[in-house]
């Protein structure tokens, strides 16, 4: 999947606006029919968009024929999973198509620390590992002279964050809220 069009915040904004217009009315109608309220519909749709974005950005992106039907499908699944079972307000990180070990590891405190102490690194790593942007785009976005410099920076950042994770690994209990 060529996701160059989702490299910047502005491009993603246009992407999400279009998806809201296209798919949110159907999802809201479904949630309303199921007895949910507006706030619940908004929460469900936001989470559905995150999942959809991950699908589109993924290195193994499949072709999705109907965005509208796909988003409604995710929303229905989220609704059933989080609300029908009485598990209201369960965060999105509990939901995933793939099971990720130690998912709960990344707690808010650790994330907050990384966001303040290493924001540039986290943004760079996000561009590589989450947005799956081509290395040339990453170099341009982050002001590196070329793909080699960007790749070197990626490994340095990965090392830095891994060190932080390692340092905290003995104290994970402190991060559990």
């Amino acid at each position, binding site marked *: 999947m060529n996701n160059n069009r989702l490299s910047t915040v502005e491009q993603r904004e246009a992407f999400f606006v279009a998806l809201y217009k296209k798919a949110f009315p159907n999802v809201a109608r479904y949630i*309303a029919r199921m007895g949910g309220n507006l706030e619940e519909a908004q929460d469900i749709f*936001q*989470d559905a968009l995150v999942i959809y974005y991950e699908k589109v950005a993924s290195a193994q992106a499949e072709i999705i024929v109907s965005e509208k039907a796909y988003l409604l499908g995710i929303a229905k699944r989220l609704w059933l999973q989080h609300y029908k079972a009485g598990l209201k307000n369960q965060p*999105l990180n509990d939901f995933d198509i793939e099971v*990720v070990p*130690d998912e709960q*590891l990344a707690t808010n405190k650790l994330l907050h620390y990384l966001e303040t102490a290493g924001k540039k690194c*986290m943004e760079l790593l996000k561009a590589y590992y*989450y947005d799956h942007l081509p290395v040339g785009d990453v170099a341009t976005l982050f002001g590196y002279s070329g793909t080699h410099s960007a790749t070197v920076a990626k490994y340095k950042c990965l090392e830095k964050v*891994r060190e932080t994770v390692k340092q905290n690994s003995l104290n994970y209990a402190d991060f559990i809220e």
Partner: protein
Amino acid sequence: MNNIKAIDDYLLGSMAPGDKLLFEANMLLNNDLVNDMEHQQNTYTVIRQYSRQKIKGEIVAVQKILATAPQHMGFMDRIVNLFKKY
């Protein structure tokens, strides 16, 4: 030299078969490597959590734009009306 790149290649499945075999043999002999791999796996989890928060933040911002920007006037009102029928 640290093992960041080798672990990255191994965990993301981009290591050549011969190197993979060697890497796995190394794991049997080297506890530090196993520990580093575990920390690196956890690091990917942290990156994903961070990224999800960021994307979610962008989505919430978009929803605010749809609710307030003049060019989208009426869109959220129509959504609100859906909930008045039930």
